[in-house]
């Protein structure tokens, strides 16, 4: 995806590995995100769910941390939204999908946000690039004035 040459650039931007949506869903839970205590609830639920697939404790911490970052971005930038946690199967692999969805302001320049070190708040700007590093797959879709959806997956090794 080259955002600069995309004629729809001004409307919607997408970035990341676009993996097929044909994964089989084994289980799904959604957590509404309104405040900072919801961030904690979401990451706890995500850890529990992922644990049922037999992820190592290191991987569970990675997943919980990714959820924490994405949920916080919802609270910070979109005020509210939801985190969908899903156990899924693709071929003979099983994994967890984390989807953070909001109807907030959208991200004006996804590339810049993914570069790291860019932040419109007082923070480190490590959240999005960090989550991308923590997970196996990462997609982000954002449209100014319509909202942002970040989808990340981690597969069991």
């Amino acid at each position, binding site marked *: 995806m080259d955002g600069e040459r995309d004629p729809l650039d001004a409307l919607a931007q997408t970035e990341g590995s676009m993996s097929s949506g044909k994964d089989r869903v084994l289980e799904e839970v959604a957590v509404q995100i309104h405040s*900072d*205590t919801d*961030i*904690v609830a979401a*990451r*706890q639920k995500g*850890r529990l769910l992922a644990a049922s697939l037999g992820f190592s*404790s*290191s991987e*569970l*911490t*990675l997943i*919980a*941390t990714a959820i*924490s*970052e994405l949920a*916080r971005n919802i609270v910070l930038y979109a005020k509210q939204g939801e985190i969908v946690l899903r156990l899924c199967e693709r071929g003979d692999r099983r994994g967890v999908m984390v989807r953070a969805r909001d109807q907030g302001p959208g991200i004006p320049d996804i590339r810049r946000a993914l570069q*790291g070190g860019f932040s419109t708040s007082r*923070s*480190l700007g*490590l*959240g999005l*690039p*960090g989550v991308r*590093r*923590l997970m196996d797959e990462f997609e982000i879709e954002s449209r100014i004035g319509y909202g942002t959806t970040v989808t990340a997956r981690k597969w069991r090794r």
Partner: protein
Amino acid sequence: MEVPILKQGPYLIASIQSALSDADLVQLRDALVEQVGRLRSRGVIVDVTALDVMDSFATRTLRDITFMIRLRGAETVIVGIQPDVAFTMVQLGLKLEGVPTALDLEEGIAFLRQKAAVPNKEGSPRGR
């Protein structure tokens, strides 16, 4: 859920629980900075052994705590970062630069004692 702060001699010890919200952490920051002044503490230990996740917000706030307390003349040490958490922090690129860390409470206290005994220009000046 407020983080309890224990006074142990010249030190303050705060043990963070697993389900720590951002607001709890900010509340801990302000309470520590206030108590260091009121109780004239020489050092602060923040024990994160039980913490499930150290994300960018937690990292930044622990840094803020350390630097604010240093500006008030006392030293802070973060203890109990678990292997899984350390691994994730490194993956995320979170480095806690300028923030002293120690294995556990015992090592944390040893660190603060030694800081007080051998002061240097960047150390805690309040040791005797």
